[in-house]
């Protein structure tokens, strides 16, 4: 089995961006958009994430597989959430008066046996806005999350983790995990070929779910045990070379440019500002800073 990292070497602003800035941006964006269900806030986040993704210069043919999965998951999350809540989907926003457009027949949960039966699902301005906001939230995170593996050299990950203040031992373990993959891939192919020669076919396993899993043992056992024994050899070699006794140096040293430092500072400042606004907005419901606690539906839609 050939293991390929999705990284694509290209000269784009996002490829040149410091890996620490990319990791921080993803984390900050994910935590910021989780704090609100305001339509306009989410639209700004989606636009920012789209610009970021656009700057990565990734082609549809390169990321198609990941995007199809994300589209499918997003549809399942948004629509599944709507139907499973019986249309009462709006969360994280003040909902004092709902503007119902229509009801349509569906099935829903009931308080008595068989606990499921016909129910009318409300379609309102609020829940439609919520569904759109939820989709925008998921897509804005996905735009940054998907671009990360395609624009970040895998050999920079451990240096970036070290650069974020994580101890050497953990950063080096992550580095080893990435380096160990081709070896595991080669062992997988060797084991698979050896078992095929004995009549084992992974895609032709018989039996139900339990039987199929149990019949995977001839592949899983030698692969896992072989990997552990191989890892123990690496540990012994590292101990022989006194790993962990003194401070490590790294072959690849990430050097942040002025632009990277400014971006990192901006990301942290923006995230802190959003979090403070969210907290303060909860205490001042009549103030403008309460905007993160409302849906922000345009008034002409609710007339």
């Amino acid at each position: 089995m050939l293991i390929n990292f999705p990284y694509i070497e290209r000269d784009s602003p996002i490829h040149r961006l410091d890996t620490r800035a990319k990791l921080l941006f993803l984390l900050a964006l994910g935590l910021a958009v989780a704090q609100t269900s305001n339509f306009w806030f989410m639209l700004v986040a989606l636009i920012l994430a789209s610009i970021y993704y656009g700057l990565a210069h990734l082609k549809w043919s390169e990321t198609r597989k990941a995007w199809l999965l994300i589209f499918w998951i997003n549809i399942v999350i948004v629509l599944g959430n709507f139907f499973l809540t019986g249309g009462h989907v709006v969360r994280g926003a003040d909902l004092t008066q709902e503007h119902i457009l229509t009801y349509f027949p569906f099935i829903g949960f009931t308080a008595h046996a068989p606990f499921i039966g016909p129910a009318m699902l409300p379609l309102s301005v609020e829940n439609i806005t919520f569904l759109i906001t939820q989709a925008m939230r998921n897509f804005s995170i996905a735009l940054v999350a998907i671009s990360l593996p395609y624009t970040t050299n895998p050999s920079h990950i451990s240096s970036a983790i070290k650069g974020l203040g994580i101890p050497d031992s953990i950063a080096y373990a992550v580095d080893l995990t990435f380096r160990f993959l081709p070896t595991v891939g080669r062992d997988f192919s060797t084991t698979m070929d050896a078992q095929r020669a004995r009549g084992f076919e992974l895609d032709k396993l018989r039996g139900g779910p339990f039987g199929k899993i149990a019949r995977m043992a001839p592949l899983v056992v030698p692969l896992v045990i072989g990997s552990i024994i191989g890892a123990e050899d690496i540990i012994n070699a590292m101990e022989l070379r006194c790993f962990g006794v003194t401070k490590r140096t790294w072959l690849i040293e990430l050097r942040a440019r002025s632009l990277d430092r400014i971006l990192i500072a901006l990301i942290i400042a923006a995230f802190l500002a959003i979090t403070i606004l969210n907290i303060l907005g909860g205490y001042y419901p009549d103030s403008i800073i309460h905007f993160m606690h409302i849906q922000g539906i345009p008034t002409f839609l609710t007339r």
Partner: protein
Amino acid sequence: MSIATNALQLPGAGNVSFRPAIVIPLLFAALFGPWVGFFAGGVGNLLGDWLSGSGVWWNWDLGNGLIGLITGLVVYYTLGRYLKRKNIIFAEVFAILGIVVGIGFASITDIWVSKLSFSAAVIGDFIPSAASDLINGLILLPILLIAYTAAVRRSGR
């Protein structure tokens, strides 16, 4: 391993593969303790998502890390040795606990991260993922523990 076995789908549950790779953090946790389990689960999930190009999803990485962390607590009882049947049963019990808490964490944080309702998080996230992990973990973990014990005995390590 997760890439190679993605073709095997659970009957009835949409887009949920068998995930036999979940046994890796369970095994490492049961043999080497909670921190190794946490690392194997968290970084393993991160790497799986990274390789498939589907991005980085911190709450699921952390949830998988928790699976390893909680399963690894069993070493305080078994000391990482599985010569007795009782120890293997204990490892299975901690694996169940780890999967329920870890997948539970990832699913429940989706209520905040993706603004899911509780029922959607349970029915859409928790049940298919936890069921798949429990089936795989509980079948493959004892097989691997026995195989590892035999390999250690043979190699004299």
